[in-house]
């Protein structure tokens, strides 16, 4: 990897100054920063003043080298990588991929075996304290980590080694962030999210199943450009993207308020686009940007296309009640036999107390008669 700046690299790839500034505007948008439209239009340099957002971004790209990224996959399905590489916002994703250099990625790297592992070791030494560590997939802790090993080493060992030299860690997807599917009850591998295991490094969670590509790249861009992580909520998620619920921004919300619900997936309500609450929508408690950024270049998102939100950006969403059961329904119902037993127990205790009282009364009456 050369030490050319990001801007030089773009320039060498034939990106004009004007396009470069436009791209800076795109980046600002991706990070959720407010940019006045005039500024975002790619004004000539000399019209930009020092403290303008885009200028700051341009400065950073002009002076900084690409940030090396090491991407580890543990108990995952590579869905987050898939979503990112097949993302429908090519300019944005390209741009971000231009600002970083992915040095190690099990699915994307062409080479394989000991060669890549060696390369990873070199990168970790060369860029100690500088690289961004991206983790996809949960880490199994049961049986000494035996459920997931790469090259004979356990996931936790690999993670701890890579985390030691990382400037920051990004957990992409619900698995890396909160344990995801592998952690679902009964969690046979004792799967854990990264932030439960690595506590001495900043860890950003970008949960989702998969993570929204634009949210991942926006967060990464923020780190590359400002050299710091964005503001996080109490689950370490960037507030810009996870500050509002799906329900807050849902296009079906007026129907919720009016009490108009789809009762099945093919009834009149479903055809009319009514609210999916009764079909199990978890929108009210799910914090993510699906309803605003959407998927496939803003084409649609699950609730828009008629499927209730599953809550995939929340911890333990697999155990958060049936996907098609209303959100307010209790998580577990006591079995009829258990309810019967409770009623029976209450009745028996009641009868025993009554009998005892009756016996006492009888004794008292007898005593007074004697």
């Amino acid at each position, binding site marked *: 990897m050369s030490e050319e700046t990001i801007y030089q690299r773009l320039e060498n790839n034939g990106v004009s100054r004007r396009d470069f500034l436009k791209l800076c505007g795109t980046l600002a948008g991706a990070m959720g920063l407010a940019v006045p439209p005039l500024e975002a239009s790619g004004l000539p340099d000399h019209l930009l003043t020092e403290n303008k957002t885009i200028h700051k971004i341009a400065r950073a790209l002009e002076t900084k080298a690409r940030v090396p990224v090491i991407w580890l996959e543990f108990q995952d399905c590579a869905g987050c990588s898939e979503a990112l590489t097949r993302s429908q916002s090519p300019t944005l994703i390209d741009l971000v991929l231009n600002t970083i250099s992915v040095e190690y990625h099990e699915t994307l790297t062409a080479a394989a075996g000991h060669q890549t592992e060696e390369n990873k070791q070199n990168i970790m030494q060369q860029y100690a304290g500088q690289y961004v560590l991206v983790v996809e997939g949960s880490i199994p802790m049961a049986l000494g980590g035996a459920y997931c090993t790469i090259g004979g080493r356990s996931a936790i060992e690999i993670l701890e080694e890579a985390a030691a030299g990382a400037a920051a860690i990004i957990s992409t997807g619900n698995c890396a962030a909160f344990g995801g599917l592998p952690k679902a009850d009964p969690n046979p591998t004792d799967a854990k999210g990264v932030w439960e295991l690595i506590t001495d490094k900043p860890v950003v969670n970008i949960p989702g199943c998969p993570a929204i590509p634009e949210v991942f790249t926006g967060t990464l861009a923020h780190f590359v450009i400002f050299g710091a992580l964005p503001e996080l909520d109490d*689950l370490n998620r960037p507030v810009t993207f996870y500050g509002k619920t799906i329900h807050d921004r849902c296009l079906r919300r007026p129907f919720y308020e009016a009490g108009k*619900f789809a009762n099945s997936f093919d009834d009149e309500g479903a055809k009319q686009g009514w609210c999916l609450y009764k079909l199990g929508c978890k929108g009210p408690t799910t914090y993510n940007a699906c309803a605003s950024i959407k998927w496939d270049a803003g084409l649609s998102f699950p609730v828009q296309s008629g499927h209730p939100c599953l809550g995939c950006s*929340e911890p333990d969403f697999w155990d958060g009640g049936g996907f098609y059961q209303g959100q307010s329904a209790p998580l577990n119902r006591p079995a009829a036999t258990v309810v019967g037993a409770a009623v029976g127990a209450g009745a028996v205790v009641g009868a025993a107390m009554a009998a005892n009282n009756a016996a006492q009364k009888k004794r008292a009456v007898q005593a007074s008669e004697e």
Partner: protein
Amino acid sequence: MNWTTFLQFTRGPLFQASLLIFVGGMAYRLVRVVLLGWKGDKAPAKGSKLAGVVKTYLKGFLIFPFVPWVKRTFNRNPIIYLAGGLFHLGLFSAIILGTPHMLVWKSLLGFGWPTLPLPIVDWLSAASIAAMIALLFYRRTNPVLKLISGPAEWLNWLLVFLPMVTGYIMTHHLFFQYEVLFSLHMLSVDVLLIWIPLSRISHFMFYFFSRTIHGVEFGKRGVTP
């Protein structure tokens, strides 16, 4: 522990435990009352017991409460009559005809029913909360009521009030994040479920008992309630 896991606890294991205590406790109360028995009345019946029961319910439960001027409570204290009625009306519209609550019943009973639009339930809930505050105020100021209200009465009020306000605030997305209020709503509901069998809020069951028994007596004696 974050709010999401706390919510899962209050919606899951805690709710389940509360529900079992509730049904077990109510069964206990029911058996105790039934086994108290009541003295046989050897006088010959002057009328039909069933007719007495029907009449009692019609008049005492379905008609008279909605015809204020025949109720002594209304004549003595219209505010208490109205506030008490409004409170129960709002309560039932929310917990039976509100969509989230119907889904609770549905998951427990296996069947659901149509619900009211949110704004209607919401206004009735607001009225219900206001009515509860009025009732509390009256309890705090009326000398007789004050005298007969012990800690249990104040707790009755509080433990019913908490689910009402947390539910209301939650619906309006006020002050806190939704799952925080959802957790508190569930927590207060769980506490209420445990409290009901221990307290006079179990009147929702005994009310029908006393009505029925009075109806039987009235019918037998051929008097109009």
